[in-house]
């Protein structure tokens, strides 16, 4: 192809510069409009660590980006073709090649060391003696359920379900037990304190082993340890207050309430497909894997309402699998939890008809456990979240979100 004349080359060059400017302006306006070169302000200690690491990576990356892009544009303008002469045929240069292998290696090594330190810090479990709040997070298509252990050093209760669909037996270390099988309680570590209604009271066990001698066959005893209090507001409208504006918003996403300043251990698991527990302001996520329970440690530092959402594609209603985080100061949290687990007012009576049948297995379990007492039965329906626990997914009823859902975030978002 014949070489174009210098004039045409100059023209083309001007066009190129103009177009670069256009692109630059577009990028700039996009950048200004979003002003989002950074993740949101973190509301947890781990999130702050992660955000600081992000800033380090960002500023290194920004420096490399600016230098290299400017270099390419400079080269493209400075060495554009002016005549037909053959430029010097340079094949390489050992020195500079070694240099630009070594310098990135050093950058990468530094990044690795810093990242490793941060990773080690945020992944390490807190000291055995530090009080922690355990919250079980159960994901399913397409809902979140949150279960609370009762406050520290108190007994925790295991619920005996009378719901035939509730076929999962779970303990605090996450093992899934098969239904219709007999399990023996580990008397070393589990102490059955009492049975309230369909709830079996046991002390939190070190090994978390549980329970049951199965007497007859038709009556199945199912027990979870330390996870009996469900807080699942899906389908119920809840008022939330935007702390920045004070505006009250009605929302209908499940809320997980967490204490500020106390380490929380989220035990995350899934009942069906893979989900991911993600709140952007934690700057942290962990997949909810079916068949296993995994721990995510967090210490929340700011009170407020934060948005959360399933991050791993999980099917039709993935986009609407939301939750909110409500972070309360510790005293308010304790009061909230106490109210949640408090025995309900005795006004209602709707004990299931088969409660009597339930008594036999409860007796057996209690005997095996070496524990004594069977408390007075109370109304199971009054326990918050009872109807949701471990029940079959309810595809017809889910989700209950209106099309234009909103979930305003607190703070920087």
């Amino acid at each position, binding site marked *: 192809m014949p070489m174009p004349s210098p004039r045409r080359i100059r023209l083309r060059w001007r066009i190129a510069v103009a177009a670069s400017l256009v692109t630059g302006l*577009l990028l700039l306006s996009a950048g200004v409009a979003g002003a989002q070169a950074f993740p949101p302000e973190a509301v947890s200690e781990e999130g702050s660590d992660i955000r600081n690491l992000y800033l380090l990576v960002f500023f290194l990356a920004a420096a490399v980006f600016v230098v290299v892009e400017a270099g390419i544009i400079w080269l493209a303008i400075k060495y554009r073709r002016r005549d037909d002469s053959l430029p*010097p045929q340079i094949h390489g240069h050992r020195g500079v090649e070694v240099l630009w292998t070594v310098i990135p290696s050093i950058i990468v090594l530094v990044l690795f060391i810093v990242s490793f330190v941060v990773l080690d810090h945020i992944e390490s479990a807190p000291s055995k003696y530090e009080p922690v709040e355990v919250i079980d997070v159960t994901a399913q298509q397409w809902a979140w359920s949150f279960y609370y252990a009762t406050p520290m050093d108190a007994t925790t209760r295991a619920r005996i379900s009378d719901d035939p669909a509730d076929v999962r037996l779970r303990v605090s270390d996450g093992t899934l037990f098969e239904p219709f099988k007999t399990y023996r309680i580990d008397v070393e570590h589990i102490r059955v304190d009492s049975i309230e209604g369909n709830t079996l009271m046991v002390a939190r066990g070190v090994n978390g082993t549980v329970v049951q001698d199965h007497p007859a066959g038709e009556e199945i005893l199912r027990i979870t340890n330390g996870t009996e209090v469900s807080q699942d507001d899906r389908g119920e409208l809840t008022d939330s207050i935007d702390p920045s504006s004070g505006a009250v918003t009605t929302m209908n996403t499940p809320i997980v309430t967490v204490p500020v300043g106390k380490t929380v251990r989220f035990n995350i698991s899934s009942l069906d497909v893979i989900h991911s527990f993600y709140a952007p302001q934690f700057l942290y996520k962990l997949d909810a894997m079916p*068949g296993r329970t995994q721990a995510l440690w967090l210490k929340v530092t700011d009170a407020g309402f934060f948005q959360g959402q399933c991050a791993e594609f999980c099917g039709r209603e993935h986009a609407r699998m939301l939750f909110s985080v409500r972070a309360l100061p510790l005293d308010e949290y304790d009061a909230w939890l106490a109210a949640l687990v408090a025995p309900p007012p005795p006004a209602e009576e709707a004990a299931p008809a088969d409660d009597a049948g339930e008594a036999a297995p409860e007796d057996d379990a209690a005997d095996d456990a070496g524990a004594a007492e069977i408390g007075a039965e109370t109304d199971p329906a009054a326990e918050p979240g009872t109807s949701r626990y471990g029940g079959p997914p309810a595809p017809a009823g889910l989700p209950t979100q209106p099309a234009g859902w909103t979930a305003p975030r607190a703070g920087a978002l």
Partner: protein
Amino acid sequence: MATLAGTVPTGYAGGRAQVLLDWLTTVDHKKIGIMYVVAAGVFGLVGGALSLVVRTELIETGAIMGADTYNQMFTMHASIMLFLFIMPVATGFANYVVPLQIGALDMAFPRINALSLWIFLFGGILMLSAFAFDGGAAAAGWTAYPPISSNTAGNIQPAGVGMDLWLVGVIALGVASTAGGLNFLVTIFKMRAPGMTMFRMPMFTWTVLVTAFLVVLATPVLASALILLFADRNGAGGVFFDPATGGQSILWQNLFWFYSHPAVYIMILPPMGIVSEVLPVFSRKPLFGYRAFVMATVGIGLLSFIVWAHHMFTTGGVFLPFFMASTFLIGIPTGVKMFNWMATMHKGSLHFNTAMLFAVGFVMLFLIGGITGVFHAAVPVDFALHDTYFVVGHLHYVLATGAAFGIFAASYFWFPKMFGRFLNEGLGKIHFWSMFIGTNMIFWPQLMLGLDGMPRRINDYADNPGWELMNQIATVGAFVAMVGAVIFLFNVVHSIYWGEKCEEDNPWDAGTLEWATTSPPPVYNFDRLPRVRSERPVFDERHGLGAYASSEGESPPQTSS
């Protein structure tokens, strides 16, 4: 030296039917290469159209189409773009160019070469045919993580027949690319012209060689995973991958990414090779640091086998420090390549035709893909960014502005060799700028959305401040880029018939052997070959540099014409 121009068959006495039969039964690597590129281009248009559907859904909050439709759209967009566009279009160019670049008559196994093409077409059509069935195409994401891709107890929305067609289709594509990979290995190792040592091979051929190794070693692992999932869905009842029935869902992820991370390099190495051909030619200089570039390519190939679990950092089932270290390491050879490309331009005589624009655009935008990858390599930062739109932006800067820009550069660069005519430069410029501006409008806002916490693969999003605007910019950008793609399509069709004629063997003053024969080359390619004493034998012959150009470090004389 258009000595063979007269012998190039331009038509047949038998008419159109004969021509068609000739193409359908050919074992000529050039025709097979063109058919690969054309078929992949058609698939690519379909994949691009699906991305427009996805972007249209996201133009505002609130759902336009049903979530089930949307899930099919993004699943098939990714599956088509990866398996049916980028990989086969690179295979097509490799098919056409590699035998020419090494001075061979054809591929080592021409019939297997044709077989690969037809199996590829079969697999692609099988995968797409799912749209015609009840339940539609696969909708579990291109990663098809069980149990979401299973029909067993663990998933209350069981994936339908589209998933099975997807699995069988990808198995077929794997067979085609494995056979193709073996073919390239034998061709490159055994059929190089006299004098062409390994370190005199053109860089594109080198990248195809490394890619062929990755294909041959990694694809069987994917095939085994696909077969296990197919079995899970059709009789085995989930014993492999569905925890509800005794399987392990994370096992799939390990097997899948053991293939699919090398697959990223299968997709990006050939475009890197293309850029390493185009940049030197239009800078009128040799590739700076040829040997270092080869080492970097081989290094990336080796490292690609030990980084797979960096896609799984948030699963809780990964030994994080090891995969963080290996992932950081892969930045080093990639950085070396960036610097080598820039040094190639340094002190050159840069001619910015469309091929060069796309090559420089590749370098500029692939850089963003590389840099955003570093964020994910730092595991704690990945905890924040994984499965958000930051990942979507990152992977598209690697593949849509990286691999695709390389493919466009190859189109403008080799078109005159393939068809004896040039692509129109004016349309080419419009194509480039609409792509350059459009892709940045799509993917830059996506990076920011990801930072702000927008998860990927959602068909509706919260109206957080700025989210709608960012998504609208991205959607407009998608249409701007698509306009460029349509202009390119028109340019190709127009130029094949009416483009400016290319009478020369070597219109670009390029250096590799494909430019030593006619445009287009005759059947069996060459009537003579120049002496091969460097990686640029044709350039050496024309400029009298043969004695000097064989190794780096020597200082050749400066010549001017």
